[in-house]
């Protein structure tokens, strides 16, 4: 069978031209963004790339990912098969090296093809019959599934027909081709030839249509995603937020107020989205009925970019030619482009008028509610199979609002003011910060420079009555283990975490700089924090500002002490255990301890050491559902939809635990609120792990803490009377 190769070449050229025609503008839109250097650590990038793309590591995190895995690999193998088929069609006897006559290859291809067909059918069933909310049952997905299906089927029949005409040893194991050949075996050769010819063309045309369709659909991820995987964030997760350089000469615009102010990598994220909806499935904002969906965030930004792209390109070209004219010859076109990349369209009247007609990125495309709803819980990024980075986009938009517009929720203004004036979000005087730890007779580092560790209670552990008890428990445990602890006292300030996540990078940097200065002044090397947010910021964000010290969370520290035998724990002395039954605990993972920093096991092991029966929640570890407080949300009102802490509380209460163990002051506050709100406060106690351990300290080791004030001892009173971390600062 030989087909007119010239016709084929023409068709191929048309398809490629169309493909390029659609692709080029998309790439140009991408380049509208600010450059972001990410080409480094080539070996590490490439290694991860192989695992993520060819190993489909993140895709396979969910069982349905298997479908994608088979379609992905099936497609690669089928692509080679298709190459062979096309080649055969063009020249008789054509054979690809290695695989062209390889029986194993054709066997593998048929196996995978069957899996692909099955996968396509299952995928269609899920999307159009089961219809989970995370997937859109739209035409686009149907077209793609149909195309894949038709591609495989045409190839099956073409191969079967060829085999019927001239059985080849190489195809003898290709069971589908052989089966089809049996089906059509009785037909005459000329009929087979004619049908085969048609099928070949059909296959080719389908393939090329697929090619042309890709850049215009969510299947652009086929092209964008490999780049995105290679360019993924290699910084620590908790240090992924871009710092702002306020001293930079040309620093006049901060944050992102229009789509082209995103970096190119951020825009590449948009193209890479496969619309799988996994991020949205575990997004606390979306799942509690807020407008924000991590998936829609990405797809809306992408659609906005593609809609605005042509206009932006025109504006940029006009501005570039204007500036080239203005500055004569010395500025090359590239310079003009680069300059412009930073400052956006020129300020000319024309640009201004079109500016007004543009839908505003903030307001029209992404609403204020969406921007402020994110808890920065990292679940979207954890679940996203293509390594998209949602959180930076949200924070960049918050930055625009705070730094450029001064438009932010009232509660956030108050919190900023408190942090600025008093060094804590609660609005307590900076002069009483150290009082509580002083009452526990913990020395300051100035008094005790040789202390083993510097304890960082944070704002909550210093100033909030409920969380002060956690500080007391920690101090007790450290004393029991013979570790000397010192604090900064009044020299400690808010770490600035919430300010940063609420978009006030300026405030964050000034608080951070002060803290770093103080810590360096005392030559601090090892810090133990109570709060996972302080922990993450000191550990992963302060280094961006030149800090260097070892930071661990108190659960890690206590685990270390326990595993070295320095904490003697008596199992099950929490007081409510019935005879013969261990108290049952669930552990609620803190986002900033778990997902951000991978601390999943130590807290759990500590609970077991304390003699509790540990149960896992349905959404646990890397899929744990946020308490709703992160991203500075604890300080903001939550009126839209359900309260996130209540959603989580309901999940917890279904497990019917005696104790909810937490390791974060925010979680403690939110879940205690939730448990009370659901009227379960008398059945279920919410406690920090340090408090639980303190209760399990064997009496012999507790003897040493007799000098502690009554208030510090929480176990007997449980959590009945605690005051709460005020959600809206006074």
């Amino acid at each position, binding site marked *: 069978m030989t087909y007119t190769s010239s016709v084929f070449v023409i068709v191929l050229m048309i398809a490629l031209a169309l493909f390029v025609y659609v692709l080029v503008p998309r790439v140009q839109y991408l380049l509208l963004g600010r450059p972001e250097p990410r080409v480094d650590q080539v070996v590490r990038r490439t290694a991860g790339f192989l695992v993520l793309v060819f190993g489909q590591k993140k895709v396979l995190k969910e069982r349905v990912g298997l479908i994608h895995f088979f379609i992905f690999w099936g497609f690669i193998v089928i692509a080679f098969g298709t190459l062979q088929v096309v080649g055969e069609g063009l020249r008789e006897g054509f054979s690809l090296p290695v695989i062209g006559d390889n029986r194993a290859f054709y066997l593998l291809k048929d196996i995978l093809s069957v899996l692909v067909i099955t996968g396509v059918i299952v995928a269609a069933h899920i999307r159009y019959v089961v219809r989970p909310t995370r997937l859109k049952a739209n035409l686009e997905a149907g077209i793609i599934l149909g195309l894949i299906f038709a591609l495989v089927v045409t190839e099956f029949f073409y191969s079967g027909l060829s085999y019927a005409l001239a059985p080849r040893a190489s195809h003898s194991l290709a069971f589908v081709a052989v089966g089809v050949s049996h089906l059509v075996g009785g037909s005459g050769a000329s009929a087979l030839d004619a049908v085969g010819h048609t099928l070949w063309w059909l296959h080719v045309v389908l393939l090329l249509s697929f090619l042309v369709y890709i850049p215009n659909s969510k299947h652009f991820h086929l092209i964008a995603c490999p780049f995105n995987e290679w360019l993924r964030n290699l910084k620590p997760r908790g240090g992924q937020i871009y710092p702002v350089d*306020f001293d930079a000469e040309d620093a*006049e615009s*901060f944050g992102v107020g229009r789509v082209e102010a995103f970096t190119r990598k951020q825009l590449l994220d948009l193209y890479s989205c496969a619309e799988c909806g996994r991020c949205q499935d575990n997004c606390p904002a979306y799942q509690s009925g807020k407008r924000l969906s991590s998936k829609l965030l990405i797809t809306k930004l992408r659609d906005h970019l593609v809609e605005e792209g042509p206009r932006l390109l025109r504006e940029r070209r006009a501005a570039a030619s204007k500036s080239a004219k203005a500055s004569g010859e010395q500025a090359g076109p590239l310079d003009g482009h680069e300059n412009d990349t930073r400052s956006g369209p020129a300020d000319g009247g024309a640009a201004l008028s079109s500016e007004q007609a543009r839908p505003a990125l903030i307001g029209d495309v992404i609403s204020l509610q969406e921007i402020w709803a994110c808890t920065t819980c990292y679940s979207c990024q954890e679940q996203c199979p293509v390594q998209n980075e949602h959180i930076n986009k949200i924070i960049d938009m918050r930055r625009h609002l*705070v*730094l*450029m*517009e*001064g438009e*932010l929720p009232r509660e956030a*203004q108050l919190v*900023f003011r408190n942090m600025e*004036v*008093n060094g804590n979000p609660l*609005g307590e*005087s*900076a*002069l*009483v910060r150290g009082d509580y730890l002083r009452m526990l007779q913990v020395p300051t580092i100035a008094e005790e420079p040789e202390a083993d560790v510097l304890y960082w209670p944070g704002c909550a552990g210093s100033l909030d009555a409920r969380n002060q008890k956690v500080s007391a428990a920690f101090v007790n445990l450290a004393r029991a283990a013979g570790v000397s602890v010192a604090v900064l006292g*009044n020299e400690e300030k808010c770490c600035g975490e919430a300010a940063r996540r609420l978009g*006030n*990078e*300026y*405030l964050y940097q000034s608080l951070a700089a002060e803290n770093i200065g103080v810590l360096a002044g005392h030559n601090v090397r090892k810090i133990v924090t109570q709060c996972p947010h302080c922990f993450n910021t000191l550990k992963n964000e302060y280094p961006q500002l030149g800090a260097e010290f070892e930071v661990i969370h108190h659960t890690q520290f206590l685990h270390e002490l326990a595993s070295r035998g320095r904490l003697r724990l008596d199992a099950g002395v929490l007081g409510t255990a019935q005879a013969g039954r261990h108290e049952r605990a669930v552990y609620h993972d803190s986002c900033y301890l778990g997902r951000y920093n991978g601390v999943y096991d130590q807290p759990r092991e500590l609970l077991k050491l304390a003699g509790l029966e540990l149960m896992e929640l349905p959404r646990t570890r890397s899929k744990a559902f946020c308490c709703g407080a992160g991203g500075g949300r604890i300080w903001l009102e939550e009126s839209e939809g359900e309260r996130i802490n209540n959603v989580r509380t309901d999940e917890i209460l279904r497990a019917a635990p005696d104790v909810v163990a937490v390791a974060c002051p925010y979680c403690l506050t939110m879940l205690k609120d939730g448990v009370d709100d659901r009227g379960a406060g008398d059945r279920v106690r919410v406690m920090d792990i340090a408090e639980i351990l303190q209760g399990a300290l064997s009496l012999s080791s507790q003897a040493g803490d007799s000098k502690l004030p009554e208030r510090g001892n929480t176990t007997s009173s449980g959590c009945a009377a605690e005051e709460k971390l005020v959600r809206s600062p006074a």
Partner: protein
Amino acid sequence: MLTIAVCVKQVTDPEAPLSLFAIAADGRHLVPPPGTPPVLSTFDENALEAALKIKDAVGSRVTVLSMGNKLAKPVLKKTLAAGADELILLEDEQFEDLDSNGTAMVLAATIDKLGGFDIVLCGRQAADTDAGQVGMGIAAKLGIPAVTLARKVEVTDTSVRVERILPYGHEVVEAAPPVLVTASNEIGELRFPPVKAVIAAQKVQPTVWGAADLGVDLARSTRANLVKFFVPARDILCEMIGGSPQEIANGITEVLKTRIV
């Protein structure tokens, strides 16, 4: 264009815990605990907000005046970040511990020197002394009407219209400019300035005038004299009354009858 002056005072953070303040050795000064941040007096922030609201509505030029000694410039520059057009600092050693009358003199002289304003806004009282005298003093010295306790200030074509708080409601007062208005917190909190404006404001060099620049002679003004600062002494006497319930009751009745009532 409409011109507005806003007089603001820098005070020690009123949230600082009272127990940490000390009385200086001379018995005439209050010493704040070290590290207490200076802030703008809250009612003065309301006054600035009132000015900015007028600026938003009808457009105006807003000048901020602040008097004192050793002023914290970063704090005062925040007024520029929030939207004021000009900041004038009146700094002089003589201005230290000036009483209300002296302060009003200095501010009135400054306003004169600047050629007068259509509206002068002050806070209803300072967050530290709570005296509430300076605004009235300025109006008296400038010979212009004063409207106190404003919860809303609007500018019409011919007059300044003020909603003035009364114990059980409010009254509306109109005055033709120039007029002095003192603002209450009901006017609204000072807006949150975009950080970009804060950074820009920090680069501005405000005008600084001393007593000599203004030609005021404070020596000749009357001056309140603070005689003594002290913490009132409090005695707590505690007497235990024991015995049977009957005896306790009798004992209490006895004490109440003989010593209290």
